[in-house]
Structures are given as structure tokens and as C-alpha cells.
């Protein structure tokens, strides 16, 4: 059946706002954020202070390590947020939703936008904590320096996990559960996986940087191997592709 054309951008924004509030305004989300913040504080005080391979605690390398350590927990939160899209309650009302002028791709786009907005809010907390930490202990305020580490060590992995979670959830909601141990395994265990499997960059960072980059003298410049950079692009690309797959119209 053809659906009437819609030009309901303001309505969609309202729905998006409602979706975001639905995700955020509950006890569960509060506890998630609390656990994540405590974890970020633990990482900052126990791992960041020393600095990565002799670099400053506020160097790009140390910040990359910080991001690779908090990344897995953020991904877990992301998967858990995606689970809400594919929960039984949500599936039960989906037919009613699709009888409205909202198409299936738009529905998933809306849901993913809400999750993305909530995730940005969630991820900003440990980042803000780290900024406060640097300001307090090291009088360091040049936060713009962390843009590149954020783009390389946080964004690709989270885009990939989001795309994967949406695609996997679309196939079968139960398949989201094995994603949880997979994310933890990839994030907290370093069996020196190659860059293409090194989702959070923790395997790369577990190498001694000087040796790995072949820089034996002077400060360690923030230069990443091309293989690693390409792998990040691939993760982003694959995440987007999987998200597109999730948004496609069902055959039923």
C-alpha cells in the first residue's frame, strides 16, 4: 500500500526528542552512566597518570590509551541501547507504528538517531571528566589536541558497533547478546590482534610505541601506521554499510 507523502520534519524532531527522553529519563540509564563515570575515574587515576610509554599524561598517545580503555564499556552501553529497539515490547507495537506515515527505513533512522544522541551524551561524560582531571592535576586546557585521538580511537569503533548491533538485531534480536562478550573480549584482551580486528586500538597500543613506530630518538610523534588508519576507515565504512542494511525495508 502506498503511503501518503510526508513532509513531517518538525514532527520527526518531536518524536526524536521523545525517543531520546525515553532512553535517558529512567533509573537504568542513570545507573549505566554512574557505572561508566566511576570506571572512567578509575582509568584516569590508575592508568592515565603514568603516561603512555613515557609521554605526558595529557599527550595524544595517553589520551588514545584512555579512549581505548573506556571504549569497550561505551560499546556495551551502545549495544544495550540498541537492544531496546529490538525488544519484544518494541516489536509488538511495530506493526501499529508502520501503519502510520512513518516508513521502516525512517523508523530505524529515527531510532538510531535517538541512540546516537544518547550515546553522544553518554560518551561526553568520561570525556568531560578527563578534561576536568587534566585541568585539576596538570593545568592543561588544550583539549583541541584530543580531536584526532577521538576521531581515531573512539568514533570508528562506536560507528562499527552501532552498525553491527543494528544489523544483527534486525536479523534476530537474540543475536545481540553474543555481541556483549565479543565486545568485552576485543576491548579488554590483547592477544596482539592485527589492526583489522583491533576494534578499539588496544592491541596496537599494547606494543611499545617506539619499537612499533621505529622512532628511537626524541619525542614520539602522533603518527599512526597506514594499516591502522585504513582499518579505522574500514570500520567506519562497514558500520555505515551495516546500518544501511538494518534500515532497508523488510520483505514481509
Amino acid at each position, binding site marked *: 500500500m502506498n503511503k501518503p507523502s510526508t513532509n513531517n520534519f518538525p514532527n520527526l524532531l518531536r518524536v526524536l526528542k521523545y525517543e531520546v527522553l525515553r532512553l535517558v529519563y529512567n533509573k537504568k540509564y542513570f545507573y549505566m552512566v554512574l557505572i561508566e563515570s566511576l*570506571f572512567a575515574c578509575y582509568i584516569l587515576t590508575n592508568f592515565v597518570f603514568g603516561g603512555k610509554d*613515557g609521554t605526558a599524561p595529557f599527550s595524544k598517545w595517553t589520551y588514545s590509551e584512555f579512549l581505548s580503555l573506556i571504549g569497550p564499556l561505551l560499546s556495551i552501553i551502545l549495544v544495550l541501547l540498541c537492544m531496546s529497539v529490538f525488544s519484544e515490547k518494541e516489536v509488538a507495537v511495530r506493526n501499529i507504528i508502520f501503519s502510520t506515515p512513518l516508513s521502516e527505513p525512517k523508523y530505524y533512522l529515527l531510532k538510531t538517531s535517538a541512540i546516537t544522541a544518547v550515546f553522544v551524551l553518554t560518551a561526553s561524560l568520561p570525556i568531560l571528566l578527563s578534561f576536568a582531571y587534566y585541568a585539576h592535576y596538570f593545568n592543561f586546557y588544550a583539549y583541541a589536541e584530543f580531536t584526532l585521538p577521538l576521531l581515531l580511537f573512539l568514533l570508528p569503533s562506536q560507528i562499527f558497533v552501532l552498525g553491527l548491533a543494528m544489523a544483527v538485531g534486525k536479523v534476530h534480536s537474540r543475536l545481540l547478546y*553474543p555481541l556483549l562478550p565479543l565486545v568485552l573480549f576485543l576491548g579488554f584482551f590483547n592477544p596482539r590482534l592485527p589492526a583489522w580486528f583491533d576494534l578499539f586500538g588496544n592491541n596496537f597500543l599494547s*606494543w611499545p610505541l*617506539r619499537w612499533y613506530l621505529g622512532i628511537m630518538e626524541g619525542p*614520539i610523534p602522533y603518527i599512526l601506521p597506514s594499516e591502522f588508519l585504513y582499518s579505522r576507515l574500514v570500520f567506519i565504512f562497514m558500520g555505515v554499510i551495516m546500518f544501511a542494511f538494518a534500515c532497508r525495508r523488510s520483505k514481509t
Partner: protein
Amino acid sequence: MANRIPFLSGFSFLFNEIRLISRSKLALMSIFLAVLATVLGLKAIDYTNERSLVGLAKTSFTVALGPAQYAAIAGSLLFAVLTLMLLSKDHRNNSTSLLNTSCNYSQLLVFRTAAILSIGIFTVVLGGIALYAVQVFVLEITFDPVVSLSSLLVITLAGIFFTVLICSGLYLITENLDISFLAYSILFFMSIGSSNYLLKWVQTSAVMYSDFGGILPVFKFVLYNRLLWTFVSTGIFAVGLLCRRRYESNLSLSLKLNAKQLWIPVLVLLLLGASLFVYINEPYINRNDSVFKTELKANENVKLTHVSSNVQLFPVNQNLSARVLYEFEKESGIEYIDFITNSGLHIKKFTVNGVEAPNSLKRIKGTDRVRLEVPAESRNVTIDISYAGRLKYPSSIGFPGYISKESIYLLENSHWIFEPLTGSQDMIEIKGSVTAPKNLVMVVPGELTGVLEEHGRKTWEYSALSNDFSPGVFAGNYEVKKMLAGSTEIEFYYSPKHRAYIEALGIENYLINIVSYYEKNIGVYPYQEYPLKIVESSIYKTGGHSTLNIVTVSEYVFNRELGREIGGDSDSFSPDLTSLKDITFVGDMDLLAHEIAHQWWGTGVFVEENPPWSSEGLADYLAYKYITEEFGSYASAYIPAMWKGRVDSMENSYYYANPKMLENLPEKQRQKYEMETRKIELYSQMPMLLLRAEELLGEDSFFIKLSDIYMDYRFKSLSYEEFLSSIGLSEADLDENPVKGKETGTEETAEREAVFDE
């Protein structure tokens, strides 16, 4: 209230739950992946980046830990999700209230948890069978059921048990799958990232099992960790039962209702109390060990002249009892003598000049030292101390002393014989005896003067004359080979398990070559009256160690795969060493040469440590010179490059450039930074300065000067100032324009980390 489930119906209920779970795809996937991880763990050695483990021979001992740990990690992650999924099933199906009215839901949850635990047992059994099949029939490695199965049981199965109980508990407390899994994630990270062995509840702190030293030295840490987490995990589960929501009530009301079943709060209190008790009374680690205390000062006004010890070792109980008689000469006015002890050894009795004085002993707080009051007016003091107990360690890995049935390793810095903090200007007369089971071969310092056998135990008597009191004894199932390097007698003690490798590689020839090289270039072996004993030791103390006429080297030096491949290159030890493909072997020989060099510099000449000056720099430098002579400059080029890289890394480090910021660091991290910096100064900066001296003076001239210094300072102390004046150079000469390490071979440096010995 619902009736209790009768005992027999409970069993049928349990089997029904097991049947339901075993049909779940997630459960089947968890079982399959955990079994796969068990088998993959056989290759754990290949995935390591520990230099000491590169190409390590795969034996029933060296491959036993990997499968258990891999399976524990995979099993823990998978069973966490499985547990949370199964426990939240009723909540997701909105059937909780219904079940609450038809049965005792608490019991139902307990049975469901028990069913998941049963699946865990099945997984580990299946993993054990798969492990046996692959290990024996595919890899053709001997299977030691005791070692492998005990690891699977105590590490993997326990890890899965803890996971199931913790996740069940967390779910019952929060009634939320998401929060429970997040909380579990934190605990999992804690296990992976913590340096405290008590917190490593998933994979435990063990790194590798020794091929000849037995598993007990590390396995006892594993067992204690499991004891703690048995209480912690069941405690969390019991708290979960206490918090379980009743009839859609909130937490506080549910708590009140659950607390009426008195056994639950009592159980919670007991388990949490037991957890706390076990954690506080940890029996193996001494956090005040002097290994971390470099500021300990020796009293130069007191001299140790004689030591006579009688030590009984009991490997079955891993303890010892000792009686040691110390004789001192001191200046009048000195009122006390400090001893470094081991906090696991308890003083039973002591006398000062033959008089018991129980009130004259004080333990110095925050250290492992005791202070003994002595008569101020006496010039000569005799102290007789009897003590017994189990040694404590500074950490759960790389410990300086242990006693077990298969091997004994007692370095002087384990303080198995209490060390007096006194000056060591003159020679000390050391006499002693060590008694142990007769199946062990004991290596004693100095000269073996007699062996007595009585009641299945042997007593080895020894005597030595040394300028330093650093007695070490080592025992194991050794074979001994005797050889001569010039006029020096060498006794090589090694495990018969590694004979094939030692013979194939001609290790004996290298030992002779190393000693001959030092005798030719530095001077005669300092202890001509004693044999030089080269002793294989377990992997529990990586690297090596050198004490009075004994050099110990970790087993991996004598136990690598023959014909192994590293990075695609065959590492087949061709006699023509013209490429770096044999770098692991070169590194091993470098370690041997370093430790043997300590016999000249460190024990022969007492080098007063004043970073970067210490015996380590001299030993490193001379080992490098030997490696260059033996294997050629191409093979040894990575060594100075490695030194340079480390020094450069240190000088470019943030805290080195901003020492004031160190004040911000927590105590532990500051300690770690200082240790690492000191290590680089001693092992990398100093040998570079010596290379600079060689460059300025010329190799021949520098070696002549080194030889002269050795002859002049043999059995005496050598300070940096004395060394510099002897070679006719100043600190400024050495500091300016430092040596540029050759760039060749730098890409190998990380894999070839030289080991930090004592």
C-alpha cells in the same frame, strides 16, 4: 507462601532445567566456543610477546596453563551472558508473578543457577577431552593429567563458577540485565588489568608453568585466589537472594521479606566476613619487602666477620627452620644492629653474646627489618637467631625464593638467612649446612665440604670466604657436567629434560668461551679455590642471578624449540651466524654472559651502587663485548641500539623532564616510575658510558685499565669516582657526545628485551 520444593522433586526440577538450557542455541554456542578456546590455548606460547617465552619448547608443563586461561576468559564472558539471559527469562516473559504463586521462586533460581553450573562442568569436561585429543594426537605433546586437569578445574571451572554466581547475584540485586552486565564488565576488566593477584579472578596471575620446577610455587597463589573468590562470588549470590524482589515489591520491602528467612542474612554475613578475612590475611605477599626499598642504609661502623648457619628445608610444607650465628666487630657506642628479615619467618629465640634478651628486639614498622639492641661498650658481638616459617614474596610473579617438592630456589634477597645491614669491607667467613630431601641435588655457595645422609634427608655442608654476605642455595633434579675453562673449574647443573637442547646447541662450549673471554681480558676467576657453578633455575624467576660462585639462569635459556620459526625465519641455529635470525639464541647467550660477568664485577669486585654506576653496567658492557667476539658485530649490533633507545626514551619521558610533577603521582606509580628509570640508568645508560670510555681510550687500552682495576679492587669496594680516576676520565668526558648506537637491528629491540636481573 509457596511450599518448598521437596528434595527429590528438586532434583527432577534441576534435570529439567539442565535439559531446557542444553537446548538453547546460546548455551550450545557457549560450550563450543569455550571448548575451542581451550584448544587454542595450546598455542598461547606462540601469541606471547614475552622475550623469555619466544620459541619456548612445548611440553606437558609449558602448554598446560594456556588452555586453562583461554578457556577461563572465554568461558567467563560467554557464561556471563548465558546466566543473565536465563535468569531474566521470566522477567522478559512476564511470568515471574505466576511462578511466584506456584513455587518457591528463590529455590527455582537456585536450581536454575545450579543447572548453569552443571553446563559449566560439562563444558570443562568436554574441553579436557578435546585438549587431550589435540595435545596427544595432533601436537604430539605428552599429556600430564595432574597438571592439565588441575588447571582446568581450578582455573577454568572455578572461573566459570564465579561468573555464574556473580552474574546471578548481580541480576538478583538489580533485576536488570543491562546494569548487571555492566557491573560484570567492570569486574572482568579488574581481573584482566589488575596487578594484584587476589583480584585476578578470571584467569589468575600465573604466567607459565616451569618445566622442571613443578607448578606448586605459582599454583598456591591460584588456589588462594580461588579460595577468596569462592567466598566473594557465593557472597554476592547470597546478597542477590536477599535482594530478590518478592511479589512485585520494591527492594526495601523485598529485603524485609527475604530477611525473615533467617538463614539468608546469616549466610550473607558469614560469606562477606569470610571474604574480608581471607583478603586481609593473605599469607604469601610481603608488601614491605626490601626489594622495593633502595634507601636502606648499611651501618658502616659494624662489620660482619663470621656467619654459621644451619638450615632445614621442608619442601612438603614449603617451610624452613634455621639457626644462624653471626659474629660482628663494631665500634663502641653502637647500640643496635639491623637485620633484613622475611616476614614469613618468625623468630623463635635469639641471644646476644650468649644472653637471651627478648625485649631487645624491635620490628621496624612498615619494613621487613628488625632492630636488635646490643651492648654499646662491646667491640665484639655474637648474635644467635633461631627462626622458622614460610617465605613471603614481594609479588606473585618473579619471586626471589621458594621451596617446593620439585625444586628449591633461595636467593639472598629472599632473606632466607637474615641479612645484617652492616659494612662489608673485609672478608666474611661463611659456614653452613642445608638439609633437604635426598632426592634433590643441592647447589651450595663456596665449597661443598661434606654430605651427610640420614632418615631420607641429606645435609650439604659448605664453607666460603667472601667480601659480601649473599648466600644462595638452589636445588632440583639436576644433572651435573664438569668442565674446565683455563684454570677455572665449571660445574653446570641442568635439568635432564633439557639435555637434548643443551647438547644440540653446544651450550657447554659457550660457557667455556664466556669464562675464557673474561679471564683473557679482565683477569682470573675471582674464586679460584671454588668451582664456578652455573645452575638452571625455574621460569618463576626470569632472567638470571649471580651470587658468590653461583650463577643461576632461567630455564628458557636451555629449553627452546629446536628448528622453530620466528617471524617466518627458520631459527635452526646454523653454525654460521651471519644473520639476525638467531637473535633469540644470541639474547640467551648475552644473558648468560651478563650473569657470569657479575662474578668479576659484583661479587669479585664489590661495585658500590650509585646510579647509573653499578655492577650491572659493567656486566652488560662485557657481555656485549663477548657477544661481539663470539657472534660478530652484526649479531651484537642490536644491543647498543637497544641501550640507546631506552636511554633516549627515558630522557624524553614527561616525568624525567618534569620531576616536580612526580609529586602528583600516587605512591605506587611513583615507585614504579623510579624503578623503571633506575633500571634504564643501570642497564642501558651505564654500558653506553662505558662504550664511550672505550671509544675515548681505545679498546685495548680500556681493557688493560679494566683488568688493572679488577686486580686492584678484587674483594674490595669500587666507587664510581675510584673507577673514573683509575681509567683517567671524568664524568664530563663520558657524558659529552654520547655514543651513537648503530641503527642496524633496532627493529628487533622490543622482542629482545634484556632481562632485569637482581
